[in-house]
């Protein structure tokens, strides 16, 4: 026991150091964002800004609605995807976990295969279908594959949630004359709230981090998501120099940070579950 306590200060110091290392890029970006260009590109650099300024932030908003639009696009993508994935995965998970119809075992196995498929092999077929349907480079053209591709993992999580529930509850309710929909909606769904929260957060994280599909299916600046949008701004090069870029980065972090602070516990669970995703 004494051994353990003696080690504590060293542990705290090491961890603080690691935290500092993690934080270093943030600090540097914050400092850059409030430095005037003359200091950013000066030959004799200072770590701390001598004349703090908000000029970069102003420039971001002066350039019109670019950044807000990227954020808004991603918000739309995530909300629509979350609603669709949430509803579909809850119903499918309920069917697979509690109703267990004929062939549901096969269905579950098939889903596991889909979970482990790398997305690259799907890119070209998706692209070709979307070309033929005329939805390539549209918002729907990005949301549809999102729903389809994020769904297997969500169904898997919901199935796991429903599996832990007693089937007797539903049987009792059915004897009392409750319809199938009522049993699902009134009895089981409220109990599955935890699983649903994980699915929602996981989908949110995945949409906000998605690059591969967004960079091939939604390449118009009007509909770019936050990731590909920032990449486009970066390509504009000098016009969008480091000071402004830093301001953009900081502003673009706000939405996910807010969600993280509000829903920390679920967020961690979402990330852990997301590690098993197929993309």
């Amino acid at each position, binding site marked *: 026991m004494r051994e353990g306590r003696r080690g504590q200060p060293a542990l705290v110091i090491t961890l603080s150091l690691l935290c500092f290392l993690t934080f270093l890029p*943030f600090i540097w970006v914050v400092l850059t964002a409030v430095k005037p260009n003359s200091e950013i590109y000066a030959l004799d650099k200072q770590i701390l800004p001598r004349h703090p300024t908000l000029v970069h932030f102003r420039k971001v908003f002066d350039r019109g609605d670019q950044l807000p639009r990227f954020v808004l696009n991603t918000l739309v993508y995530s909300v629509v995807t979350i609603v669709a994935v949430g509803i579909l995965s809850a119903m499918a998970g309920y069917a697979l976990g509690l109703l267990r119809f004929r062939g549901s075992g096969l269905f579950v196995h098939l889903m596991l295969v889909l979970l482990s498929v790398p997305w690259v092999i*799907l890119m*070209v077929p998706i692209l070709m279908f979307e070309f033929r349907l005329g939805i390539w480079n549209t918002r729907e053209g990005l949301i549809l594959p999102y729903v389809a591709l994020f769904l297997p993992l969500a169904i898997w999580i919901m199935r796991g949630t429903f599996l832990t529930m007693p089937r007797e509850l539903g049987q009792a309710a059915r004897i009392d004359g409750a319809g199938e929909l009522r049993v699902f909606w009134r009895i089981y769904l409220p109990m599955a709230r935890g699983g649903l929260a994980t699915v929602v957060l996981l989908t949110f994280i995945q949409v906000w981090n998605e690059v591969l599909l967004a960079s091939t299916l939604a390449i118009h600046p009007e509909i770019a998501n936050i990731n590909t949008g920032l990449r486009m701004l970066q390509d504009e090069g000098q016009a969008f120099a480091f000071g402004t870029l830093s301001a953009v*980065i900081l502003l673009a972090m706000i939405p996910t940070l807010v969600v993280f602070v509000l829903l920390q516990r679920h967020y961690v669970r979402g990330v852990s579950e997301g*590690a*098993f995703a197929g993309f």
Partner: protein
Amino acid sequence: MLLAFIAYPIVYSFFLTFSRFTIRDVKWFAAGLDNYRGVIVDPDFLTALSFTLSYTVVWVALSMGCALLVGVLLQQVRVGSTFFRGMLFLPTVVPVTMGFLMFQWILDPANGILNYVLKEIGLGGLALNWLSDRGTVFGSMVAVTLWGFGPWILLLAGLLAIPKELYEAARVDGASPAREFLYITLPQLRPTLMVVTTLQVIAGLKIFVPIYVLTSGGPANASLSLYFLVFQKINQYKLAYATTVGWVFTAIVTAVAIATAMAFRVRRDDA
């Protein structure tokens, strides 16, 4: 019906690799094995393959090491563990491209902080073009993707599940922390380690975003990965090539994942 959305494209995509096609029409099975032959002899593909494999080996080893270190530290610490966890978790919260964009600025040869600090402390000779030099781009990629210290959050759950009695018993017997780690932590963590390592290997093989943000595969394809190659070819409308690389990639991922799982099983039999 839901499965048709993914299952159908998978089959479709597999058949495409044997066909000659454009975005509008397909001549089924007209190409035979030509697509595969074209990929295998392509020097770009071989470059991407060797970059992806060596990156995966180095990155998985380092990131698992980091994750183990952070995980064990968080397991042992008694003060402020929630605080440290929250702080160290932050890189995961930031949307991926933002994190890498920050590094573009840090690693900038002329105005970045890294080269500035190196010059200040008298190591000006080490101030390099981190992202645009053939020799350093590999190391930069590995370093940049190590930010966040690997999947420690996944290991921590396993570490916290190890019964405390084991450590208490070891301490009564006078075991040193190093021996505790070797004889309690590692064996107890083995199942978790196996799963997480496999996941990391797969994630490593799929490296795409940092290349997309920082180097676009350059300089001179020195940081070209398989995923980025597919992305490049799709943008050039070389769809047959892209699909075929995708399937070769799938075969590699499957093989590597099975090999990783088997390596762990063999070692367990030894013990």
